[in-house]
């Protein structure tokens, strides 16, 4: 049963992504409102993949990626970044910090599900 951590400050986006993720069979969605909240959830539950927004209050997605990659317990968790920015620079920054993939908003849920399934190795 894959545990999917959705880190997004916007309730609308959080709900939309969680909704899409629940369509992956036997998946469990864990929601976090920012980077700090995500770290708390990571400490509480085993997470198989992280979907994180870049622009968030308290702790943004880039900082979260950096902290996750530097923690031996979480460093191998795949991270998919979701952001409003379509700019190449943001994508490069997220990828250089260790994100596995990048999806610009407005997200196409089918594309997101496909990407998550790929990293969870679900056919």
């Amino acid at each position, binding site marked *: 049963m894959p545990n999917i951590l959705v880190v997004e400050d916007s*309730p609308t986006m959080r709900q939309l992504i969680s909704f899409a993720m629940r*369509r992956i069979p036997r998946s469990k969605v864990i929601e976090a409102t920012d980077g700090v909240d995500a770290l708390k959830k990571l400490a509480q539950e085993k997470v198989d993949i992280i979907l994180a927004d870049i622009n968030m209050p308290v702790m943004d997605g880039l900082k979260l990626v950096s902290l996750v990659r530097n923690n031996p317990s979480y460093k191998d968790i795949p991270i998919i970044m979701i952001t*409003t920015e379509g700019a190449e620079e943001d994508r490069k920054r997220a990828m250089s910090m260790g994100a596995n993939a990048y999806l*610009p908003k407005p997200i196409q849920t089918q594309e997101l599900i496909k990407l998550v399934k790929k990293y969870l190795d679900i056919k």
Partner: protein
Amino acid sequence: MGKDSKILKSAEEFLQIFRRGEEFTKSLLKENERLRYRIAELEEALQQSSNEARIKNYEERIRVLEEELASLKERFKKVEEENKDFAHRYIEVEEENNNLANLYVASYQLHSTLDYDEVLKIVLEIIINLIGAERFCIMLIDDKTTELVPVASEGIELEEIPKIAVGEGIIGTVAKDGESFFSDDIVNTDGVDIYKPLVCIPLKIKEHVIGVIAIYSFLLQKKAFSNVDYELFNLLAGHAATAIFSSKLYTQSERKLSTIQGFLELLKEKPKK
């Protein structure tokens, strides 16, 4: 002499018998050859007729197999077509599912609160995250002045947006007629001309327009409108209007209620002697 002629006669008879035997043997050999030839002929004919029957049989089987192959090919073609149709329908259902999820989330969020500022924030979020707009504003009609007043914006400073009279330009016309405006393409320009939006949606409660949403640019990756965009525009036109209107009324009534409660508290207070 008599003895010699007897021997001669016997020899002559023997010779005749031998000759007859020779002739008989010859005729037997001839007959044998003829019969062998005949047998060969018959065997050949038999072989030929058997080959012909076999060929005929093979031909019949080939014909049946060819018919079966054609029928299988036809069935395969039909199944393939059905498969394609199913795959196509699956994609359509998936797309529809996603669209419904988007609409459900948007609708759920819009009606999740009665706080006016929060409702405006949710409308902004929906326009950014679900539609992919970059620069836009929400304007509401001021009942006293009948002007469109900006109440929220993204990518443009709220102070930079002027009030627009109902009926004036594209935005004013949308507010007056209640009909959405979509420009022919969604090519983004560097600057923003407040009076020339790419999309303008009326916020309507039944036929009563309470304001508009004017979109000036979209995110880079947004190249064209999809079906769900139009559904979301329709949803925003109705649900956002209701949510904004009811939250505004609720906030106003809350404010009035707290003022009245304040007065009541004052009245209840005993006058100091």
